[in-house]
């Protein structure tokens, strides 16, 4: 049980100090009459007046007070206040939209300034700190986030239509959905293919130890090629292949597009996959294997009933690392026309439209975080011996 009471909680104090500074010092929103011109920034008091802005500081100060002499009850109250602030954040943006956007000019849009982003980050850190201090389960932590997410959903539907990010999404709804689909498909197929190949390669390395050094050498080398270079290197051979082999061309294989992207993704995914699978299978306690054989299990039984189940959590760890890496790399694949969410990032960079970049980058971020959390939890669950 973590010690709750006693000395001031320095983490919470500094986080709330950072929140206060961000609230007063950093622009809350920026407003532009249309997509082309860059907007003008507004600080919090400029959005809603000094009185309201100061009122919004109260919960931050209150959390600092509670953190000064923490007890379990006080920390629980602080947790409630943090969730409240997270919930209020979209409402604040809605208020800004109502106040600053002229409803008669349809092109006007509002960007989220650095203030709310920093605030979001700081508040999430505070949430994690409080969750661990209070010893709450991870699941409950996620559950608490449902309230702010609900508030965000409602605000997006009702008041936040001038939000630039939202407008970018509204303007590209279909493109966004298909890009998301392409992204997921590329990642899924790349991870699936590299899992199959990776396990086979790892098994081969165990069978023929001589192949092990050469194998890891090749995979390490693949990993060091910069991704854009690898896409470029694949361009010529694939273009040649598709012009020579008719059925490949019919499948859609060409020098650009999904084929080189998939090849490169698989290439990058193989090293973590093979390494984890190999280490996992080799790392099983030799006395357990000795006992299994001594009891009269056949080689197949030892592998299926003992070695593989004991290696599974580490193999899963490999899948997790590979998937998170592939989600990021697939963004780059947009450069060679493979589609995916990277398309928005590069379009946005080209047009200096940061909100369009965010439209591509944010889902990638959430996807990676989601996969990381889900596969991480699954791996924990599969640890031998269950939960002690």
């Amino acid at each position: 049980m973590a010690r709750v009471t006693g000395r001031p909680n320095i983490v919470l104090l500094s986080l709330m100090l950072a929140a206060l500074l961000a609230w007063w010092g950093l622009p809350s929103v920026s407003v532009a009459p249309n997509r082309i011109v860059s907007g003008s920034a507004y600080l919090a008091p400029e959005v809603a007046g000094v009185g309201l802005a100061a009122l919004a500081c109260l919960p931050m100060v209150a959390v600092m007070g509670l953190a000064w002499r923490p007890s379990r009850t006080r920390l629980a109250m602080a947790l409630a206040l943090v969730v409240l602030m997270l919930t209020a954040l979209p409402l604040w943006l809605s208020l800004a939209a109502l106040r600053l956007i002229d409803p008669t000019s349809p092109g006007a849009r509002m960007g989220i300034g650095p203030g709310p982003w920093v605030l979001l980050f700081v508040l999430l850190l505070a949430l994690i700190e409080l969750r661990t201090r209070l010893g709450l389960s991870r699941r409950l932590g996620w559950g608490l986030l449902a309230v702010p997410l609900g508030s965000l959903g409602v605000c997006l539907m009702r008041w936040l239509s001038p939000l630039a990010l939202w407008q970018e999404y509204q303007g590209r709804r279909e493109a966004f959905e298909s890009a998301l689909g392409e992204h997921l498909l590329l990642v899924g197929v790349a991870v699936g293919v590299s899992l199959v190949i990776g396990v086979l390669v790892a098994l081969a390395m165990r069978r023929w130890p001589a192949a092990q050094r050469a194998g890891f050498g090749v995979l390490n080398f693949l990993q060091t090629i910069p991704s854009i270079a690898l896409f470029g290197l694949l361009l010529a051979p694939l273009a040649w292949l598709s012009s020579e082999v008719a059925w490949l061309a019919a499948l859609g294989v060409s020098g650009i597009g999904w084929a080189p992207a998939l090849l490169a993704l698989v290439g990058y995914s193989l090293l973590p996959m093979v390494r984890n699978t190999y280490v996992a299978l080799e790392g099983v306690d030799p006395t357990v294997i000795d006992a299994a054989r001594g009891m009269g299990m056949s080689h197949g039984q030892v592998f299926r009933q003992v070695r593989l189940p004991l290696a599974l959590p580490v193999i899963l760890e490999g899948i997790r690392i590979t998937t998170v890496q592939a989600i990021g790399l697939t963004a780059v694949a947009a450069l060679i026309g493979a589609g995916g969410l990277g398309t928005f990032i590069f379009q946005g960079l080209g047009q200096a439209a940061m909100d369009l970049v965010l439209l591509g980058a944010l889902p990638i971020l959430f996807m990676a975080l989601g996969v990381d959390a889900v596969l991480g939890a699954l791996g924990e669950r599969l640890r031998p011996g269950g939960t002690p």
Partner: protein
Amino acid sequence: MIELIRVSKRFGAETAVDDISLRVEKGELCVLVGTSGCGKSTTLRMINRLIEHSDGEIHLDGQPVRTFREETLRRRIGYAIQSTGLFPHWTVARNIGLVPRLLEWPVTRIQARVEELMNLLGLPQEEFADKYPSQLSGGQAQRVGVARALAADPEILLMDEPFGALDPITRETLQEELRALQARLHKTIVFVTHDMDEALRLADRLVVMHQGRIVQQGRPIDLLRAPADAFVESLLGGEDRGLKEAALLPVSERMRPLRASQGHAQERIAQHASLREALSVMLWRHAERLIVIDEDDRPVGELSLRRLVRARDDE
């Protein structure tokens, strides 16, 4: 019955086991003892063919082990090792039921057998059946290891330093339990250890190995009284041998009938206690004479210090 006839094992140019012959009778507990690297574990593992012997023959009840399929052979032989080798992802009950399941016993028979073994080894079913090995203490885990080795009721049990990783007290408890178990079950056991005290305590037949060869074998008491060479003597503890021998002999062997006239010796000792314990009581209590009592606390004889230390030749 296990018989090794002129068995050798070479790993490349190295000879791990060099031309040994050994016969373990049915129901006998045979302990292979020696320093590490003397070939005792290799010898054990050649019996269930985890290591294949290079020369000679190994027979099980008169049948060469090579005539069995490896898996079939091993399922007939119980196997317990140091650090238990329990499967960490299986519960205690499932671990114990491993070999019966490999032999495709019906589920109800496996359950009954697992329950029987858990009772036999003092692991209450309700408390331990669903635990995982990581939740057990060292002694409990080793009990599960022994139960697993006994699961399919094998004639033969191979034990490779099974108590090597335990603390001294737990080790002694388990040694006692193994002796009690053996008194009931009469298995043919080959037991490997480097701990001479453990070897002397458990062995019906003691086999001392050195550099891949058998230097001496026989009853523990015979080895203590007549070690074949300086190596065996040093392994048996040199000057400490007197106490080791005393530990092997029961009080009843040296006591004589109680003489009513000298009735004032008050310190008592059980007749099945060892002479070593008797000596310890005398030293501690400053007594030169002990009353020997039976299981019902009735005096049955007496033991004097003079008789205790008397040379064997006078017996």
